[in-house]
């Protein structure tokens, strides 16, 4: 199963919300849509959900128009939390499951299973409004996947979750991925994206800055992220050839190189006096790449 976005654009009068977007989300992969606020993530999701129509371009599911996709196969977690405050957690999940065409009998089993998994069993008969924000978030997530969707869209699923609950949620998402669900999600949290996604699309003001595998993006810049620990001074390091910047991070120094090949001469220079505790060369983090991409566009 594959979701393909081809030359997708959405224009609101003069304002271009999404501009010629292309990407493919495949089964067994998690696809991340990354961008600042107003980048066009939610508009893209709404077009996939058929809530609004594209100005031009196509959204295809298995090569056919997305309109043919059975609505009961879609799961959607909106960015802002949508639950009925006066309904109990159990009724809420039952309602959203039935809304996606599942029968009451199958749902009851599923609900118990999911509540247990998310440590919410004791909250089944509790009114949703009395839950903490994190627990509401978990209920919302269960509501979006209780019907075993084939396409799951998660708009900022981690907002408001503590690390333990974020971990539970990540595991659930990975489990769904392994079951064959096509998952698209958006997040501001690059660490989550880096951990979960194989492919991403970087959005800025509706335009795609990059679309493809994370590793390809990283390779574009190469291994220019160097951390060292040893008896150095900042002034020693900043003078080295090929070093763009030096920053002190706790007991280490972090160096950004202009090119991956600059690392070898630096290694030689730093180790000429003997032992150093750390010399570690790596790709830039996704967050740094994102900042560079966004900043690069500004120049």
């Amino acid at each position, binding site marked *: 199963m594959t979701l393909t976005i081809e030359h997708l654009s959405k224009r609101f009068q003069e304002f271009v919300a999404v501009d010629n977007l292309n990407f493919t989300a495949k089964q067994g992969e998690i696809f991340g849509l990354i961008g600042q606020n107003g980048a066009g993530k939610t508009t893209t999701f709404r077009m996939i959900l058929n809530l609004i129509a594209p100005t031009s371009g196509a959204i295809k599911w298995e090569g056919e128009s997305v309109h043919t996709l059975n*609505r009961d196969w879609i799961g*959607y977690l*909106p960015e802002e939390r*949508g639950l009925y405050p006066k309904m109990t957690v159990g009724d809420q999940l039952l309602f959203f499951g039935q*809304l996606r065409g599942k029968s009451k009998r199958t749902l009851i089993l599923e609900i118990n299973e999911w509540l247990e998994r998310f440590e919410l069993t004791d909250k089944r008969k509790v009114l949703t409004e009395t839950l903490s924000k994190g627990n509401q978030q978990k209920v919302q997530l269960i*509501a979006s996947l209780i019907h075993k969707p084939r396409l799951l869209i998660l708009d900022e699923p981690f907002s408001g979750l503590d690390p333990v609950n974020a971990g539970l949620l990540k595991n659930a998402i990975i489990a769904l991925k392994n079951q064959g669900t096509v998952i698209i999600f958006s997040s501001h949290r690059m660490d989550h994206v880096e951990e979960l996604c194989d492919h991403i699309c970087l959005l800025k003001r509706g335009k795609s800055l990059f679309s493809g595998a994370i590793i390809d993006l990283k390779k574009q810049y190469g291994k220019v992220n160097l951390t060292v620990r040893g008896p150095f001074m900042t002034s020693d390091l900043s003078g080295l050839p090929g070093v763009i910047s030096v920053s002190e991070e706790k007991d280490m120094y972090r160096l950004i190189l202009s090119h991956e090949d600059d690392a070898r001469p630096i290694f030689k220079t730093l180790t000429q006096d003997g032992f150093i505790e750390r010399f570690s060369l790596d790709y830039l983090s996704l967050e740094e790449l994102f900042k560079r991409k966004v900043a690069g566009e500004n120049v």
Partner: protein
Amino acid sequence: MSKFMLLFSQSYTSKLKAKSFYITTLIMLIGVACFFLWPTISGWFATADKPLSIVIVDQTKENAASYFNSNKKISFKTSNHSLKEEENQVLKGKTDALLLLSLKNGDQLNAELQTKKPLELNNQQMLEQQVQSASQLFTIQQLKLTADQAQRIMNQNVQLSQKVISQAAEKGKTSEEKTTATIVSYAVAFIIYLFVLSYLSIISSEVAAEKDSRIMEIIISSTSPVMHLLSRVSGVLALAMTQFAVLIAAALIMARSFQSGKYWDLLNDLFSSLTAGYTAYAIFFFFFACVLYTLMGAVLGSLVNKVQDVGQAVMPVTMMLMVGFFIAISGMSNPDTLLIKIFSYIPFTASMIMPMRIGATDMSLWQALLSLLILGGTIVGLFLFSLRFYRGSVLTYANGSFIKKIKQAILLSK
């Protein structure tokens, strides 16, 4: 279960189970009970009242005091004492008032009332009536008629019989039929006003809350905007009809059991004097009004961004409703004015005014049918129009006027 039924029953049962529904129904039931128990309730307060005691000092020498008759509310007593003494009695509070009768121009009755403090309006009016009729009797007396002649003048009464002589015209209604219809129509207008006012805000807040919490996006991504709109409108309508049925049933039971069935007979008389056509029209107008305003409530709810803004958004609709209601009240005294005619065709007020015209004027029924068709057409038109932007409006969180929002919503719905 189909998705429509799921959404409908969710909308209906969640509100049926809500405390606010029980409370409003209870308040309305208490209101109905008060209406049927009114004689008993007013009796509790009335028993304490003593009749107004009035002493008459008659200086006419024609025994004019005999024309004043005591009743439950006023007791008259002719004085044997001097004016001065009686004035003292009033000042001491032994009697409530002193009525001084004298002659004016030799043959007319002149009355003057002396009290310690001003009389209440009700007593003032009763006394004025008494003085008026005493004066008439006194004048008749002065004309030296026989008792029999005087009686004939007092008892004369004429009935105006009306006959439409053109062949084409329908038979006119009697004024009694018209009065009955006016009362029933007033009740219909009042019920519409009361129901629409409460359910308008219920539906618009429901839709606004679903939009605000983004539940709307989940619902319309799994069904369709049309289904959402229809399920919300029908859910709220079903709730309104449930409450209406409870109130009618309670009213009928109360009418049967309270005051030894006096009201039951009264209602029987009332409804037997109404034609089947009138009843059918009144029911249609009531139902259509509920549909129209519920639909408007849903659409307005979809246009606001926050639940807090609902009150402001439904304000113009509430105004329209009030205009209709007040015009209906003005029709109680004269249902034949041009104002009534005009507003009986405007769909937003027709349901409160047209039933009155049907019952209380001699218009032909095609006019009622026309008005009903206009109302029905408006509902269909509004429904089709709102479908054009409902999808867009539930996804728009922009600020600005409603016109601007509707334009934007239509753009987004394309």
